[in-house]
């Protein structure tokens, strides 16, 4: 009896699977969650490949659609995965817009001539050093490199003015870093530009000699500083703010913006580009424009603790204004050679 029951169950399972497969031809799974109530919009919809996370992007898209009536469909992924996907798709990509976490991903896609030139009215909103020189992508929010330090163990006065200061033997066993992290690699790229290969190599070797503890990414790194596992860590400014918010209590850690300039005083951008083959370029441009309007810029500043890039938008409380930072004089074009940086990191043994 059991055997018959089992066979029937199996049959039912296959039939159900068959129905599901055929069901999805007619669009059964409602992926966007909006298509049921809204009338079908075939041509107006913007397809966005987002290397930035859903928790940040999704609320903004709701505002965008409410303001413009243009629906957006998103494919989330890491910036590198999406860049690789765009490179494999080539001219056949269904994407309209690529929103990347860092200039490296945009640079790789732009180098394959897959991005369209943006209108000057959009580009002009953002300072020169936060957009591509060719005009094929534009930064939308900024992140500062900082040194996160444990406030129980380190006084700000003891911290060096620039990155080179951490080569001193007094920092032995007190440093944490994340050589596999994209932002860290951008900082090393800046070092190579400003210091040259040899000095950068010497800095990396000094960090290894100082027994810098490696973390897979910024979140665990900042947490390790806060719980005293290490005393200082090289990170981006907003991780500490986000982790404090999640923890609900004050953490024993603070951000330190290196006052001495150089590659440690870097502001990096997340940016967007429009695909040259975008099926829906008018709405794509409208979307990019929206990201640079005060509503979206204010959202970045207040909800994700990032730096707005257009003038006149207030920054999150507790942040130092961009103008007061001693920002390294580098354009985004100087920061896209991550490949050379990865080679160097692998060569000195900082990265596998």
């Amino acid at each position: 009896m059991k055997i018959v029951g089992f066979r029937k169950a199996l049959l039912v399972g296959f039939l159900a699977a068959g129905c599901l497969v055929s069901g999805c031809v007619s669009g059964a799974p409602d992926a966007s969650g909006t298509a049921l109530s809204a009338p079908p919009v075939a041509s107006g919809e913007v397809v966005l490949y987002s290397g930035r996370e859903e928790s940040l992007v999704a609320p903004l898209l709701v505002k965008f659609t409410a303001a413009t009536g243009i629906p957006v469909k998103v494919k989330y992924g890491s910036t590198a995965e999406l860049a690789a996907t765009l490179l494999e798709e080539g001219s056949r990509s269904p994407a309209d817009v690529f929103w990347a976490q860092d200039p490296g991903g945009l640079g790789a896609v732009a180098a394959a001539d897959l991005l369209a030139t943006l209108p000057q009215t959009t580009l002009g909103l953002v300072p020169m050093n936060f957009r591509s020189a060719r005009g094929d992508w534009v930064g939308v929010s900024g992140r500062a490199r900082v040194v996160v330090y444990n406030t129980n163990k380190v006084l700000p006065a003891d911290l060096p003015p620039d990155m080179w200061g951490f080569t001193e033997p007094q920092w032995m066993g007190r440093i944490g870093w994340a050589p596999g992290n994209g932002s860290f690699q951008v900082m090393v790229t800046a070092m190579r530009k400003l210091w040259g290969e040899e000095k950068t190599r010497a800095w990396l070797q000094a960090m290894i000699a100082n027994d810098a503890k490696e973390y897979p990414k910024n979140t665990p790194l900042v947490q390790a500083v806060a719980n005293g596992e290490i005393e200082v860590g090289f990170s981006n400014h907003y991780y500490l703010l986000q982790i404090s918010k999640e923890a609900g209590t004050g953490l024993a850690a603070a951000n330190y913006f290196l006052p001495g300039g150089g590659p440690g005083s870097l502001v990096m951008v997340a940016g967007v580009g429009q695909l040259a083959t975008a099926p829906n370029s008018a709405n794509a441009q409208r979307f990019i424009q929206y990201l640079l309007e005060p509503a979206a810029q204010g959202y970045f500043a207040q909800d994700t603790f990032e730096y707005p890039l257009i003038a006149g938008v207030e920054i999150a409380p507790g942040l130092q204004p961009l103008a007061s930072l001693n920002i390294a004089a580098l354009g985004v074009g100087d920061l896209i050679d991550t490949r050379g940086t990865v080679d160097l990191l692998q060569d000195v043994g900082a990265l596998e």
Partner: protein
Amino acid sequence: MRQLSFWRVSGWRWLLRGAAAAVLALVLLPLCYLLVRASEAGPAALQLLFEARTLRVLARSVALALAVPLLSALLAVPLAWLTTRTDLPLRRMWAVVTALPLVIPSYIFAYLLVSVLGPRGLLQQLLQPLGIERLPDIEGFPGALLALTLLCYPYVLLTVRAALLSVDPALEEAGRSLGLSPWRTFVRITLPLLRPALAGGGVLAALYTLRDFGAVSVMRYGTFTRVIYIQYQSAFDRSGAAVLALMLVALTIGLQALELNTRGRARYHRGHAAAKRKPMLVHLGRWRWPALLLCAAVALLGVGMPAAVLLFWLVRGLTLGTPLPALWNATGNSVYVCLVAAPLALLGALPLALIAGRQRSGSGRLVERVAYSAFALPGIVVGLALVFFGARYVPAIYQSVFLLQAGYLILFVPEAFGALRAALGSVNPSLMEAGRTLGRAPAQVLRSVTLPLMRNGVLAALAIVFLTAMKELPATLILAPPGMGTLATSIWGAVTQAYFAAAALPAVLLIGISSVPLAIFTLREAYQ
């Protein structure tokens, strides 16, 4: 006697072969893609092959892929034996709980492991009053080994338990009646009978270890998968990544040769049509305390610890008023794609298993090797391969749920194959031959004899594919159509940016949903 037409016999055979060839062609797509991309690297490819760094990566991958199955077997055999053959208290509960780590995504698990066992993690904070200021680092090989063993030993546990349940108790009883002690009976009779199950489960564990990205990246252990990701992420170097991925395929094939050798030419099914009956349960007596301790320790590390931390994040987020994401769509999408993926993988694996299981010839082995060859490929490679072929040659289904299902088929056919192959190995072929001599067509024999006899293997395949698909991340990110989020992608999006409360809810949902088929399967298999 009714004579079967030539067509009904040989037509069936060709149908089987045709289906198998189609599935194998799909499984080989990523390899074709890798060859295309690797050939672009030119002489640099050869250089990369022989760099000292690449050889270190190879050594690390081999070390991990051997150590994880070995340690898994050491955990799985006692646990399987305790939960099937003894009067262990709460046996059913332990049977379910010890299999559960299989449902936890590795990127979450390794992260939690570090936040609990790290130098200044939760455990250290508990030990602080005892004057312990920091714990030793677990990152690197020990951490990767611990995380992957806890995640992979259920593969071995499930196959060994199935084997223990299907062994003819008469063999063991004969041993006992000839004067062997219970321990010697286990070592000389039971353990050798478990060889194919150990080898089959071990290969699944080894290949999963090679494929996994989450654990090795959190533990910063530079195996092939991690290095391949670094090539993509930092250098956007698709050719270099392809060369490394091809080395990984070569390593996979090498590991399989090992497995095929251990299986040898022995037979493992019941000798004749003995009625299936239950073995006598071993009375544990005082030994039940250490036995319970082992079960509890494994359950605490593999299930209790991650569940506790996730719930802590969730409750902390709720008390702080953190807005939690609405997950109806993500949950629906996850369940929907996995409910389709599981029977599809089963259908795809069935012809392969029938050919590989019934033919000891070269073609059977070839099918087996090809079926496994792409198993260890990281999800990102499979995803990009389908982007490459999908966007070029089948734009109609590109960025649709069909391509995602094709990706799942490539990723999960080997898992379903493993479960079916083991189940088929314990079925006595003379039963099928009897069906044929009694005048049934091959398809009828499959339906009325073979499939019912291997039903536990079929259910195991369905359950394992369902829950592995639930936690699959890299290929899902690349292949899911725009707008289609799943639970796995929700977790990933939140945890990378330290939104712990937002990550905990989908993680709890994912683990809860995946636990259901696993629990049903485990209870049905052992105690029906």
